[in-house]
């Protein structure tokens, strides 16, 4: 009674990360083949400037 047993959820549950592969999407990145996982890992963001001049 003194010690409160805290019920928890989510232990070991990973985040889902959805990415586009070749025009289409896949469920989550852990379904990617090794090469595509490597490619996804290497992707860098492209900067966008909306200034018209």
């Amino acid at each position, binding site marked *: 009674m003194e010690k409160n047993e805290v019920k928890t*959820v989510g232990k070991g549950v*990973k985040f889902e990360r959805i990415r586009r592969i070749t025009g289409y999407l896949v469920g989550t990145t852990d379904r990617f083949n090794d090469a595509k996982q490597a490619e996804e890992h290497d992707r860098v963001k492209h900067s966008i400037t*909306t200034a018209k001049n």
Partner: protein
Amino acid sequence: MGQTQTAVFTHIRKRDGSKVPFDSLKILEAIRLASEAVPENKIPASELAPLTKAVIERLPAGTEPTVEQVQDMVEETLVEAGYFTVAKAYILYRAEHAKVRQSKDDLMHIYEQLTFTDARDADIKRENANIDADTAMGTMLKYGSEGSNYFVNNYILPKDIAGAHINGDIHIHDKDFYMLTETCCQIDLIKLFRNGFSTGHGFLREPNSITSYAALACIAIQANQNEMHGGQSVPNFDYSMAEGVRKTYKKEYARALADFKALRGENEPGAEEYAEKTAWERTDRLTFQAMEALVHNLNTMNSRAGAQVPFSSLNYGTDTSREGRMVIANLLKATRAGLGNGETPIFPVQIFKVKEGVNFNPGDPNYDLFKDAMATSAMRLFPNFSFLDAPFNLPYYKPGDYNTEVAYMGCRTRVMANVHDPDRQVTCGRGNLSFTSINLPRIGLLAKGDEKKFFALLDERMDLAFRQLLHRFDIQRKKKRFNYPFLMGQGIWIDSDELDPTDSVEEVLKHGTLSVGFIGLAETLVAMRGAHHGESEASQELGLRIISHMREKCDEQARNTGMNFTLLATPAEGLSGRFVKIDRRMFGEIEGITDRDYYTNSFHVPVYYPITAFKKIATEAPYHALTNAGHISYVEMDGDVTQNLEAFEAVIRCMKEMGVGYGSVNHPVDRDPVCGYTGVIYDVCPRCGRREGEELSVEKLRELRRKYPDMPVGKCDC
């Protein structure tokens, strides 16, 4: 003659250790075959017997020679006799056989791997991310696929082609389906639904409401997917579904009118206004429900024995009718809503067709839907955007005629021009027959900057690919209409409704495309010029020359054969790592070429190279015009894109202005399955505050649920 030699050896030892009777005629036959491979240096028939004897004389007397020994002696004898090119052909032939034998040995090993290893540990089971190879049917499918590859390698393909595939000069896509069918098709649902259709397992009458239109659309995609090895696309989804909306509206109008009159009397004014208003409201609601069901169905219904859901693509955006607009708006809305627990739908791949005067600028009738499409894509990654104003898409376009609007398969495949029948340059009922990709970086590595050598090798590889595509077509054309009960039997493929069940499909297949693809232009340019096209103008110049040359060769081949040979910027999911793995073994690890686990997709600027979005688009756009079998460009955006729609729109508008054919914006879409948050998650979930793998108290979850009633259920007991 020969009384001594033939008596010397009674047996020969095969590679598997077994003994078979020695037969000198087999040696003669091998020499003849090698000789026939090089018509310019052919050995006269009278020379074959003396050469055979010379081979036998070289074998150590009194032993049981091995096959390898005999082959070594054949090589030596040919070289000594001055038949250098024949010797070279023979050596190649041997090497190719050795590779094929290798694959033969590996088959049972592969079956073992498929059976006893989980997908997360076996790359072979994740070749295509949308196939679940851990399930019984997924594994069964892989058994079939690997067994079929073995059969095709060993018994079907000409040896030099099998060799070129195995050694990674070329890659024959979907080789497991070599003996069976074609890649993909663009389905005209309007034509299919007229008077109903049969799936091969039962007849369905013409649908009469948007609800049944959407349901039957899924069934048609599913049925066709099971007869082809690629994806299925609806090129005119808005136009197709608009007919269903019209029927629903008519019914709802009649019902509302009857309700009004029953309640207020026949002559009470305002009946029509009430009926119209009520009917549109109900129709809109029913259309949303139909689109919601369609998205759910396309993410859950089985195809290919349950290993996959159908690979579906929907093109839309140009139907400006009230009904068509209602379809588009509700499909986008359903996509934003997501699946049962708010998950991002993986299918259908959605493609929004951008067209000036229709939806591109403020004041265009569907401009609001274009904005809506961008907001949806910013949240869910779909739709992608295709550009009907691109200089290579525009010439086909006739306003209001969907059959003249270029459509894309979700993966990027594009089918439009038609050398087989220039009067039928249309979208519906056509697709790709098969495609084969060329390992461009290897040619760069072999040529080492020598352009003359590069283009000579490129021509050689392309000729090989052409020959292989025709070899495959020769198998495809022998099929009959009855081999495709849905695709052909229901008249989905162009002109197939004019065939009798036992007619050959050869003539109608000729409306499809045979495509040569490529991967790794960036690595190729590093090999040739020391820099890729994103970082060097000179490399861009060479890159454009290489791809232009490939396109010209495809055009030339199309003119010479009357077949639709086209150039493809290969999607390369399974292929992305295959060539580079072999090339690293051959050439070692070379910086910027073989030092990563993948070759860069098609003509893309490498994903790791920092470049502005606009520079990337400007660099890649000219290649879209050259790759008439399909292409796509991506821009990677950071952070929560839904909060930056202005930037999103700037990217899409830039793609359109630069002449891109098909493009999309990539951005992170993450989801925490515990609390259901969808958006960008870096290390910590912004909703529930847990890190990946961390636990969360049930109390906290319960608290969150009060704030977010749409949170997933079933993950816990609260």
